[in-house]
């Protein structure tokens, strides 16, 4: 048997020609695939964008850090005591930091932070601020950009100097048109010289702050040396509320434990908990492991993608069924043509290829338009809703190749049906 070479290009040309013969029908058939591909890409882009935002914020907390935070214990007996004016003692202590540093392997350093909420005054303005008493290493661990001047130095801490570094936002609010570095601010009865202006790299609004009040600017941070904070503010915080005085004794509000590497983080987390639980009778602290949060976020993202992707895939499937439906109708309609071609020497596979090419042209064409729309839709969505969207190349590739596969899978049956027709019967068909 002589193997005739396949008239490949002319088959494609013929396929496109027959599709153009019924333009409206072809376009309507393609719509199913267009929407399918478009929704796969758009949905994955929106999902990707949403999780990207969350992940970025978690990453900024530092994947090699473990964050410990003091919590006011939820305990009725204590709360009753506090109500009567006695001080409530809870939270992380300097000793905890030293113990972690000494016993947990892989710890580079422990960064203690005290957080005091106080009004900061300059000239006639007074701004509610968050005073962070901390060490110079804060800058490196948390991630601060120096805008002007410098951050706190070792000597500031040693000398318990009354110096401070303020965030950019606060500097703008306090010293509207003056150089912050020449000024001093007043907290309670002490003056602090401003030595630097910084910008927090991790978005401050994402950090849950103890005692946060709503409607308050979130980047009003003043950084002072830890030793200064200890001597100027003491460890008892007094908060006056309507009719009662609330006193709390908290040594440290937060500790950031920096580990040698990411691998050490997960081993260290239970060790730190075990260590602290021996000294903390009540549940008065929490640990945040950004690495685990990141993993969870990735897990959530995966589920999210699967759900969104399958919804979109169903629309692709429906599009495929639409193609198959139309092609079956086309085969019936063109039975006569199939008979003629068979009589003129077309083999079964010629007929199969002819119809398969048509479905593939439909689905690939629809796929291409769908890709273009799928890239445009997330762009419009993020413009209109301010929601970040990320079109990943793999989602485009996935959607496009599925559309091609849909064309072949759903085209094969009608094409085979066309090829199976008996030439004599087909020729007789009206």
């Amino acid at each position, binding site marked *: *048997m*002589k193997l*005739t*070479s*396949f*008239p490949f290009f*002319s088959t494609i040309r013929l396929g496109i*020609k*027959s599709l153009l*013969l019924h333009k409206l029908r072809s376009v309507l058939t393609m719509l199913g695939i267009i929407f399918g591909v478009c929704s796969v890409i758009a949905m994955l882009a929106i999902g990707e964008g949403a999780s990207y935002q969350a992940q970025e914020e978690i990453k900024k907390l530092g994947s090699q850090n473990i964050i410990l935070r003091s919590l006011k214990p939820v305990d009725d007996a204590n709360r009753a005591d506090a109500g009567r004016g006695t001080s409530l003692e809870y939270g992380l202590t300097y000793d905890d930091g030293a113990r972690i540093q000494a016993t947990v392997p892989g710890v580079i350093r422990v960064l203690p932070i005290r957080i005091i909420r106080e009004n900061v005054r300059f000239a006639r303005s007074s701004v509610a601020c968050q005073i962070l008493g901390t060490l110079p290493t804060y800058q490196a661990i948390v991630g601060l950009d120096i805008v002007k001047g410098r951050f706190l130095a070792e000597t500031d801490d040693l000398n318990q100097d009354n110096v401070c570094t303020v965030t950019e936002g606060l500097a703008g609010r306090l010293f509207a048109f003056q150089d912050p570095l020449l000024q001093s601010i007043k907290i309670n009865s002490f003056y602090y010289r401003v030595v630097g202006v910084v910008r927090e790299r991790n978005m401050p609004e994402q950090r849950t702050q103890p005692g946060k009040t709503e409607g308050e600017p979130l980047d009003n941070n003043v950084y002072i040396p830890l030793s200064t904070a200890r001597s100027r503010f003491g460890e008892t915080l007094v908060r006056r509320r309507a009719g009662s005085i609330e006193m709390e004794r908290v040594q440290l509000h937060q500790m950031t434990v920096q580990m040698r590497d990411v691998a050490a983080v997960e081993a260290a987390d239970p060790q730190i908990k075990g260590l602290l639980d021996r000294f903390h009778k009540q549940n008065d602290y929490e640990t945040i492991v950004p690495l685990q949060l990141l993993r969870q976020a990735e897990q959530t993202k995966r589920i999210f993608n699967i759900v969104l992707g399958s919804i979109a895939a169903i629309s692709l499937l429906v599009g495929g069924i639409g193609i198959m439906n139309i092609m079956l109708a086309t085969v019936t309609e063109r039975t*006569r*043509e199939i*008979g*003629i*071609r*068979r*009589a*003129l*020497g*077309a*083999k*079964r*596979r*010629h007929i199969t290829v002819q119809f398969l090419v048509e479905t593939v042209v439909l689905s690939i064409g629809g796929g291409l338009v769908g890709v273009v729309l799928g890239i445009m839709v997330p762009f419009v969505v993020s413009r209109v809703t301010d929601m970040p969207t990320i079109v990943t190349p793999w989602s485009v590739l996935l959607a496009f190749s599925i559309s091609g596969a849909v064309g072949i899978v759903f085209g094969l049956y009608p094409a085979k049906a066309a090829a199976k027709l008996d*030439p*004599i019967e087909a*020729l007789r068909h009206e």
Partner: protein
Amino acid sequence: MAQEQAIIRLEELEKRYDLGGEAEVRALRGIDLVVRPGSYVAIMGPSGSGKSTMLNLIGCLDRPTSGRYFLGGTDVSAMPDDELSEARGSGIGFIFQSYNLIAQLTVIENIQVPLLYQGKDLDAAHDHCVQLAQTVGLGDRLHHRPNQLSGGQQQRVAIARSLVNDPLLILADEPTGNLDSRTGVEVLELIDQLNARGKTIVLVTHDERIATRAHRVIHMKDGLIEREIVNRPEPSQG
């Protein structure tokens, strides 16, 4: 030797259609026929006599239930589907009663269709196709579609198409059935010319006058050859 000389050789050819259960139609009940190259044979007979079934078998569109069919010396009676397609495409030209042109293709494209399945280069064959169109008198209508042509013109496109692969055998199934008598004569004259140029013609018709153009007329009845009339001698083989 006789086998080599025959372009068509039917031996005890039978075709039965199974209609399910006991019912069976014996469309052909043992046909023996030899057609030599260059001859012009007309097949006549009332409807249901089996002449269409025989033309389908000769045209390799169908396979006999029993018996043998040699086309140009090759036994095609048990060939697989693909080889039958090959035999049709390369060895046989078809002219149908209802023209059977492909509606969405132009004249020139319709003529090219059989080339497509022989894997031939359409561009190289383009001049040949144009020449064929000119031969049948449609040189100025190459890019018309079938619905822009008259019946006679359409049938002439079909004749050009049947010639494109230069087959030895041309099968015509009531080629003038849908035409008025004047255009019918034109088409028949074209067929005569083909025969004069050496093509073997097998033509099915109802019309006695058309049949007189052939060398031989075969009358069929109830799936058998009833009688055979020789109008004029067949061209001798060298």
